[in-house]
């Protein structure tokens, strides 16, 4: 892991070791989290990605001390989560949650600030989250996007060392999302650690130093977002070729797979630079050439598609976190 080598003495902001949690339902046990290992160094911004049911929220619940793991260890700055929460080291925006009514936005933020020993100034938090203009409004008269920003203010007001955000931008429009992440970037720049779960893969791409992909209760990939993309055929070349030869195309350097529909070919590449040079040598008359970055979406689909279905024990051939990096 990238952070493990920096220092063995300094406590990790987050350390999850062999974390597992099973929910017992009347129908069948649900293995929500099945052996998650994760270490986050202080100051990192990490995206937690995965489809519904991947175990992201359960992992976050255990990290926040809202759920106990069946097995495994959770440490936040070297301490159990309950201790870190009691000290005010964690701020969290959980996936679901509304605001209590009959207070103004400013009053609610002040009320939460009073729970911390050393909170941020309420005015500073309102400014940071861009809600000064609604500070006097009642909490029960806010739009969805405004509510999310107030919830962000509540998570930030304790000036926590670790900020945990579980799908924080759900229900926000594009502009709100952009300013939300601007806020978080500002906060991260003060050396704070941020872990956020998201469905919006571009958010992970744009705002995280590192992406952790979960599927079916396990971490299936963990690394810098650029590395994750490179791992799985990072770019696609589209071109129009007359007399395209699948076998020849496949033999060119940097090309992983070939898809042909008449004259149109789509080439998935592990090294698009080498591939495009070789392609133009072999087909000097190639037209309509496009090179498309895959983004995390494709990386994500490829990585999680290889997983065995639920209930079947993990195969040795399935991608391991270690051999992916």
């Amino acid at each position: 892991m990238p952070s493990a080598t920096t220092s063995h003495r300094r406590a990790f902001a987050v350390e999850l070791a062999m974390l597992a949690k099973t929910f017992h339902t009347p129908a069948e046990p649900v293995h929500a989290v099945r052996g998650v290992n994760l270490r986050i160094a202080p100051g990192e911004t990490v995206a937690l990605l995965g489809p519904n049911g991947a175990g992201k929220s359960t992992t976050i619940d255990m990290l926040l001390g809202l759920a106990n793991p069946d097995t495994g260890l959770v440490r936040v700055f070297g301490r159990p989560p309950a201790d870190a929460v009691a000290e005010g080291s964690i701020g969290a925006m959980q996936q679901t949650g509304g605001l209590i009514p009959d207070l103004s936005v400013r009053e609610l933020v002040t009320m939460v600030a009073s729970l911390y020993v050393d909170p941020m100034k309420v005015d500073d938090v309102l400014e940071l989250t861009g809600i000064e203009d609604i500070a006097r409004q009642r909490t029960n008269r806010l739009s969805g996007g405004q509510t999310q920003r107030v919830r962000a203010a509540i998570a930030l007001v304790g000036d926590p060392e670790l900020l945990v955000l579980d799908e924080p931008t759900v229900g926000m429009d594009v502009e709100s999302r952009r300013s939300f992440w601007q806020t978080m970037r500002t906060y991260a720049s003060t050396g704070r650690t941020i872990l956020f779960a998201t469905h919006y893969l571009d958010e992970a791409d744009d705002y995280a130093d590192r992406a952790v992909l979960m599927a079916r209760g396990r971490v299936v990939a963990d690394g810098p977002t650029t590395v994750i993309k490179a791992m799985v055929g990072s770019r696609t070349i589209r071109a129009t070729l007359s007399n395209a030869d699948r076998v020849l195309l496949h033999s060119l350097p940097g090309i992983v797979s070939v898809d042909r529909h008449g004259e149109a070919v789509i080439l998935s590449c592990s090294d698009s630079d080498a591939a495009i040079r070789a392609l133009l040598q072999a087909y000097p008359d190639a037209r309509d050439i496009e090179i498309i970055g895959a983004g995390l979406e494709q990386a994500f689909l490829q990585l999680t598609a290889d997983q065995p279905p639920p209930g079947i024990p993990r195969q040795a051939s399935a991608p391991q976190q270690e051999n992916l990096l």
Partner: protein
Amino acid sequence: MTYLRYELIRTFRNIRFVIFAFAFPLVLYLVIAAPNRNEHSLAGTGISAPLYYMVGLATFAVMTGAVSSGARIAAERQVGWNRQLRVTPLRSRTYLVTKVVTAYAMALVSILLLYAAGIALGVRMSAGDWLEMTGLLLVGLIPFAALGVLVGHLVSADTIGPVMGGVAALLALLGGTWFPITSGFMYDLARSLPSYWLVRASHVPIGSTGWGSLGWLVVAAWSVALIALAARAHRRDTRPA
């Protein structure tokens, strides 16, 4: 303290709640007691109608107020506010103390409003009796504050209104809020209920010694039992899943 202050502001700003908790008992009191203001010994109890109903409706008001303060926990659970608080340094004890102090603040306002209405209808007693009566009302409120917390953790916000309304109305009826209960099975039943002893505080000005040992025993037993249950419900609701 800041947390408590905003909890109080929040409670007293909720118009519907305030109307129901304060105005409703007050209006009922005037409707029932004003026409009978010259009745000096209601049903042979030796207590005037204005005094009897003043305490009876104070009982009703503080009971519903205390229970519904605690029951607001259900609304906080419903919107996920409790989960939000669990990731702050707020301690369980502070959370519960805040709820109970709020319940008592509501109760004191109710009591003072009904006292004022009672005085307007001619209720007179010594300062010592006023204080003793108030003291009994506040002590008798303990089991109801605990009941609110208990129900707030057990029942969903959607059903809490009818549940609490029903329980409070039944306890008020059986405790003698609406008419004195003086004999028979109903009397034996009433004396085992904490609401009866709240109503019974109206006996202070006629020289009877407040509750007597049975009263203290019943209120203490209900308090201990409901506090234990409320604490258990709170722990179950807030421990890691």
